[in-house]
C-alpha cells in the first residue's frame, strides 16, 4: 500500500524514468495486451492524469510483454509493485482517482490467484522458459503457421506497411544500422551496413536472398522459424528489398526441410493472394516477389558465394571474397544475403524501434554497429543436457545460465565437461569459461564463435580428441575441394587425430597438428576452411592434457577411444548376476551364476553393452 503522496518527498522512486515523477505506471505494450486494448487504456490514463493535474508526478511507461498475456492488458504500478489486470477504459477514471491521487490501490482490479490451489507452475516459474526472451521466435506456438490471417492478427505485415507508407529506403537502412542488428547466420556482420552497401552498389537488377541452408549438425533454428512463422521471413525480405532497391527475392532452402518448405510455399501463395507479394504492394508502387531455390544439402552452400554459384546452376564452390556479393553476387548483380533469423528480427525492429531493440544485449552501438551485440539469439541446445530444445535468449547471458538454468544441467548426474558453440566449425569451451557473456565478440575472443547458434553440451564421458575428430571428419567430407589448404589440410588433420585416438601417434604430433590447423585457417579460400580448425585448436587450447594422455601414455581419460581402453570386471563389485554374459554379442564374458565373471579381451570389441547393463557398476574401462 503506498503512502499518501507527498510532494516534498526527496527520495526518487524505484525505476525512476524522470526525476520529478513519484510513480510509474508500467503498462504492457506487448502484442497480446495491445490487442486486448492497452492502447485505449493508455489514452484513458493520460487523459485522467491530466484531469487531476498529475501528469508531472506520474509517468505512463509502455513496456514489452510481461508474459502474463492471458490477463491483459496488465499494468504494474511502481514503486508499489501493485499488479493490475484486465484493465478496461471505463475502469481508468476510478483507478486514477483512487490509487494515483488518493493512494488507495483498487482491489477489484488487482490480480488474484485462481481460487483453486493448483500444482501447475506458471511459465515464468519454469527455468526453461524463465530466462528466455522471444523476439525472432515471438510467434512460436501462438499462431497457425499456415494462416496468413493469424500472422496479420499478431501485427504481421504492419512493419512492411509502415516502411512503404512512412519511410524512405534510406531511413529504413539508418534504422537498421542504429539498431545494431548483426547477421545471425554466423558472420555477425551489421545488417544495416550490408543493406547500405547493396543499395549503393552499381548494377540492376538487385536481388535479396534468404539463406535457409542450415547445415550445422544439431542446429535447427532456421527450420523452426520457417515452420512456426513463415510469413515473418517473407516480410523481413520484403523490407530488405525495399531498402536495397530490389524487386526479386530468393529463398535458398535445403531439400531436407520438407515441412518448412511446404509452409513457406503456402505462405507465399497466401501472400500473393493478398497482394503482399507481387506488383504494387499496398498500392505504394513497390513490386516484390520471391522464388524458392532448393539446395541439395551441401554444408559449403551456406557460404555466400558458394550458395550463389549453386543458385546459378554451377557446382557449389566458393570464390575469393575480395569481390563482395553485395557488389557482384547472384548473376553478377548486387545481392543482399541474410539468413532466416536475421530477417525474422527486421519487422519487429521497424515496429518497436531502435531504442527498444538496443535495450537488449551488450555493448554500445550508438557510434558503430560493431560496438556490441544487440537483441537476442536463438540457440538449439542439444547434446548432454536435460532440456534439449530451441531457446532464444538476450545477448550477454552467460553460457552457464543457458546450460544450467534453461537447459536444466547434465543428465544422469554426470559432470559438465565442455560446450561447443557455433556449429562444427565453432570452438569447444571448458567449464572455466562458462561465465563469459554470450555475444559475437566474447565468443570469438575465446576461440569459438556465435555461428548460426548450434550449442552442443558434452559431459565427462566425451573424449575431446574424439569430438575434434568427429567434426574434422564431417568438415573434410563437406569441403568442396576447390582450394588446397582445406582439401588436403583437413585430410591430414583428420589422419593425425585418428592416429592419436588409435594410440598410434608419435611425440611431436600435437605441434604438427597445431601448425597444420593454423595454416588451414589462414590460407583457405572461404569461411569453411577458415573456421574448420576451430574444434582442433580450441580443444588443444583447453584440453591439451587429454591429447597428451593419448599420445604419451596411450590412454583415453574419458574411456572412449576404443584402441586405448580395455574392459575388465571388478571382482569386488561383481555379484555374478550373469546379465553381462547374456548380453555380450561376442560371448566374451564367462562366469558362473553368483560368481565373479571375467572378460576375454581377445574377443571383446569394446562395444560397452556390458557396462551399460551392469547394475553393480562392476565393469571397469581403463
Amino acid at each position: 500500500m503506498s503512502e499518501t503522496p507527498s510532494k516534498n518527498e526527496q527520495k526518487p522512486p524505484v525505476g525512476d524514468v524522470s526525476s520529478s515523477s513519484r510513480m510509474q505506471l508500467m503498462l504492457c505494450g506487448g502484442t497480446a495486451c495491445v490487442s486486448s486494448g492497452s492502447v485505449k487504456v493508455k489514452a484513458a490514463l493520460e487523459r485522467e492524469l491530466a484531469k487531476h493535474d498529475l501528469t508531472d508526478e506520474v509517468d505512463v511507461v509502455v513496456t514489452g510483454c510481461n508474459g502474463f498475456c492471458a490477463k491483459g492488458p496488465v499494468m504494474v504500478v511502481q514503486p508499489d509493485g501493485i499488479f493490475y489486470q484486465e484493465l478496461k477504459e471505463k475502469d481508468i477514471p476510478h483507478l486514477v482517482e483512487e490509487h494515483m491521487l488518493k493512494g488507495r490501490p483498487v482491489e477489484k482490479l488487482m490480480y488474484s490467484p485462481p481460487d483453486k490451489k493448483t500444482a501447475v507452475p506458471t511459465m515464468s516459474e519454469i527455468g526453461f522458459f524463465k530466462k528466455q526472451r522471444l523476439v525472432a521466435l515471438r510467434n512460436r506456438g501462438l499462431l497457425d503457421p499456415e494462416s496468413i490471417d493469424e500472422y496479420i492478427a499478431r501485427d504481421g505485415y504492419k512493419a512492411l506497411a509502415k516502411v512503404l507508407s512512412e519511410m524512405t529506403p534510406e531511413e529504413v537502412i539508418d534504422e537498421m544500422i542504429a539498431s545494431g542488428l548483426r547477421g545471425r547466420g554466423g558472420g555477425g556482420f551489421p545488417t544495416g551496413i550490408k543493406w547500405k552497401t547493396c543499395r549503393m552498389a552499381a548494377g540492376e537488377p538487385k536481388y535479396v536472398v534468404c539463406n535457409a541452408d542450415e547445415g550445422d549438425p544439431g542446429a535447427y533454428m532456421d527450420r523452426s522459424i520457417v515452420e512456426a512463422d513463415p510469413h515473418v521471413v517473407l516480410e523481413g525480405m520484403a523490407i530488405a528489398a525495399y531498402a536495397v532497391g530490389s524487386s526479386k527475392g530468393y529463398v535458398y532452402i535445403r531439400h531436407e526441410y520438407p515441412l518448412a518448405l511446404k509452409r513457406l510455399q503456402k505462405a507465399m501463395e497466401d501472400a500473393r493472394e493478398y497482394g503482399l507479394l507481387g506488383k504494387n504492394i499496398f498500392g505504394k508502387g513497390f513490386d516484390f516477389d520471391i522464388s524458392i531455390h532448393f539446395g541439395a544439402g551441401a554444408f559449403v552452400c551456406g557460404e555466400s558465394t558458394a550458395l550463389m554459384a549453386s543458385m546459378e546452376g554451377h557446382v557449389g564452390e566458393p570464390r575469393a571474397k575480395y569481390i563482395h556479393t553485395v557488389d557482384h553476387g547472384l548473376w553478377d548483380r548486387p545481392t543482399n544475403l541474410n539468413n532466416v533469423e536475421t530477417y525474422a528480427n527486421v519487422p519487429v525492429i521497424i515496429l518497436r524501434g531502435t531504442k527498444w531493440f538496443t535495450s537488449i544485449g551488450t555493448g554500445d552501438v550508438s557510434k558503430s554497429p560493431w560496438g556490441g551485440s544487440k537483441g537476442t539469439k536463438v540457440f538449439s541446445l542439444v547434446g548432454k543436457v536435460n532440456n534439449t530444445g530451441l531457446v532464444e535468449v538476450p545477448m550477454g547471458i552467460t553460457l552457464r545460465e543457458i546450460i544450467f538454468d534453461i537447459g536444466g544441467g547434465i543428465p544422469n548426474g554426470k559432470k559438465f565437461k565442455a560446450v561447443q558453440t557455433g556449429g562444427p566449425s565453432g570452438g569447444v569451451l571448458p567449464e572455466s569459461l562458462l561465465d563469459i557473456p554470450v555475444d559475437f565478440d566474447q565468443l570469438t575472443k575465446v576461440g569459438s564463435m556465435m555461428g548460426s547458434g548450434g550449442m552442443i553440451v558434452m559431459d565427462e564421458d566425451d573424449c575431446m580428441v574424439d569430438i575434434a575428430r568427429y567434426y574434422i571428419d564431417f568438415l573434410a567430407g563437406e569441403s568442396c575441394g576447390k582450394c588446397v589448404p582445406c582439401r588436403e589440410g583437413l585430410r591430414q588433420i583428420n589422419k593425425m587425430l585418428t592416429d592419436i585416438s588409435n594410440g598410434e601417434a608419435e611425440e611431436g604430433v600435437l605441434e604438427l597438428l597445431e601448425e597444420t590447423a593454423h595454416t588451414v585457417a589462414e590460407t583457405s579460400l572461404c569461411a569453411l576452411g577458415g573456421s574448420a580448425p576451430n574444434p582442433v585448436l580450441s580443444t588443444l587450447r583447453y584440453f591439451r592434457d587429454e591429447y597428451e594422455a593419448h599420445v604419451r601414455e596411450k590412454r583415453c581419460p574419458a574411456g572412449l577411444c576404443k584402441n586405448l581402453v580395455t574392459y575388465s570386471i571388478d571382482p569386488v563389485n561383481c555379484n555374478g548376476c550373469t546379465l553381462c554374459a547374456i548380453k555380450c554379442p561376442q560371448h566374451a564374458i564367462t562366469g558362473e551364476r553368483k560368481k565373479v565373471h571375467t572378460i576375454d579381451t581377445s574377443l571383446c570389441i569394446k562395444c560397452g553393452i556390458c557396462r551399460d547393463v551392469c547394475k553393480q557398476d562392476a565393469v571397469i574401462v581403463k
Partner: protein
Amino acid sequence: MFKLRIEDLDRIAEENKKTMSLRHGAGRVKITVHMGTCGIAAGARNIMAEVMRCVGESGASDIIVTTSGCAGLCSREPMMTVEVTDQAPVKYIDLDKKKTKRIFDEHVMKGNIVEEYALAMGGERTL
C-alpha cells in the same frame, strides 16, 4: 494490381482475434497441437488424430482445434496447449493417445487441469 490496402490489415487482425483469443468470443476452449518437425517426429500427428476423434465423439461445437509450430522444448514433445476461456493456457508434455484422451475428458470437457501431465500455465515472455 494491389489487393490489400494498409487499413485492411487491422480489419483482418480484428476478425482473427476472435478465433485466436478466446477473450473475443467464438469458442470456449482452444486446443493447440504443436506440430513442428520435432513434434511430428515424436508423434504429434497421432495426438492430433486423437484430439479430432475426441472432439467428434463429444459432439461439442465450442472447441477450436488448431496447430502451431515448435514450442521450444523439443525434448518433451509431443506437446499440446489447452486454453479455456478466462483461464491461463496450460501446456501438456510427453503426450500419448491415452493422456490426450484424459486431458480432453478432464480439462477440455470438465475444466480440471490434469496436473500430472502439465508442464506449466501462462505465456512466454515475448518482445
